[in-house]
């Protein structure tokens, strides 16, 4: 007897992504910070931003500090951020 089982995992939805543009150098580039503001990461994140400033001197800084740590950042803000930066740091403290 052969039992035929159907795969319960289905397919995965395709996500369209832009081509990633590698950066040779971070100095003077526009940086974006996306941070979830979890209490356990506040000190670290402040120190990280300070270090980025010292080490790479970003041309500009755009921040999305999420009000709701656990929910996705607002899509409109994220879309704008993408246009205004060369690279982003994403902070998921927990």
């Amino acid at each position: 007897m052969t039992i035929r089982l159907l795969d319960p995992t289905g397919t995965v939805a395709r996500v369209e992504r832009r081509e990633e543009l590698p950066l040779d150098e971070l100095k003077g580039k526009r940086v974006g910070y996306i941070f979830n503001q979890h209490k356990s990461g506040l000190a670290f994140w402040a120190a990280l931003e300070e270090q980025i400033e010292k080490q790479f001197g970003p041309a500009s800084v755009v921040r999305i500090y999420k009000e709701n740590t656990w929910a996705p950042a607002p899509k409109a803000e994220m879309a704008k951020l993408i246009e205004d930066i060369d690279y982003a740091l994403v902070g998921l403290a927990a």
Partner: protein
Amino acid sequence: MQLASRVFESNDIQSAIELCYERKWTDGLPVVPPTADAVERIVKHLGRDPQEVIGMVPPRDGVATIETIAINCVMAGCKPEYVPIVIAALQAILEEKFNINGVQTTTHSCAPLVIVSGPAVKTLGFNTKECAFGHGCRPSATIGRAVRLILWNLGGGFPGEPCKTTQGHPGYYSFCIADDEEANPWQTLNVELGYGADETVVAVHAVAGPQVIETGAGYLSADTILTILADSIASLGSSGICGGDMVMVLGPMAARNIANAGFSKSDVKRELMRRATRPVREIKRGPAIHESHPMHWKYQTDPTNDDARVPYIRSEEEIQIVVAGGWGSGGGFSSLCEGWGANRGRPTHRKVVFPQN
């Protein structure tokens, strides 16, 4: 019937069950091998296109079609007539405000609790009496189980990566209860949520496991019962310290006692809002979210006044009251399912659409 899923073969029932383990199609409990016949029975019962898409299940973004839902329902042991409830629960879970991506990945121990209310509670044979949260009832056991398998197989909610829940709870295997219309002295949940009494509704809440409360409803006053319920809500370790939502499942004895004293369901919510508080001097020593978070407790009271009271429930919408459970002894046992807190996600609900046969 044309089904689209990949097919795997086994030689016998035992190896079919083992194959499900090997393919990581189950979370630890054995499952019913999902054969095409069984899946087709469900699809036929529903009368829907098997490739109809219901949504994407995060974080894996597996595509939930009628077919893939049916496969997981077979594995869970659902009868075909249960599946419309699973579909409605999934639709509610996939609403953006429920934040299932967060629920599937949080370090908290919340899982979607499926609450069924309306005529199908009786027609499908849900147990709303003794052991309402527990074992012994096929509809609640298998509908809750199907939801979990969907979150597992389509959503990829595997412990460790990406599911970071630190503790989890037994409801991660199956978490479904039904509102007891007979024992409910107030409006049933479906009507309270704005649906007709003749409509079956599913509400979903991301909550921790049930914490039993001995209310003493067989011999204590309604006033005392409300104080006991409120005390159970306002603990220092509760995520409710920053608001959010919770489900209070009142045993029928507790509900009857409180209702007989003249409290409506809305009155009960307001009384719990008023009583479930703690002073600032205690709250400020405990865990909290970031102060810039709009749900932080400091926006609810004067944080510089040690005697000011911090409310754990900020609006009637933050507490859902359901009546279920056995009549029991004078202990009047009830349960609190504490929410994820701080509006990390919000409860949602859907009308169940049954096929027109």
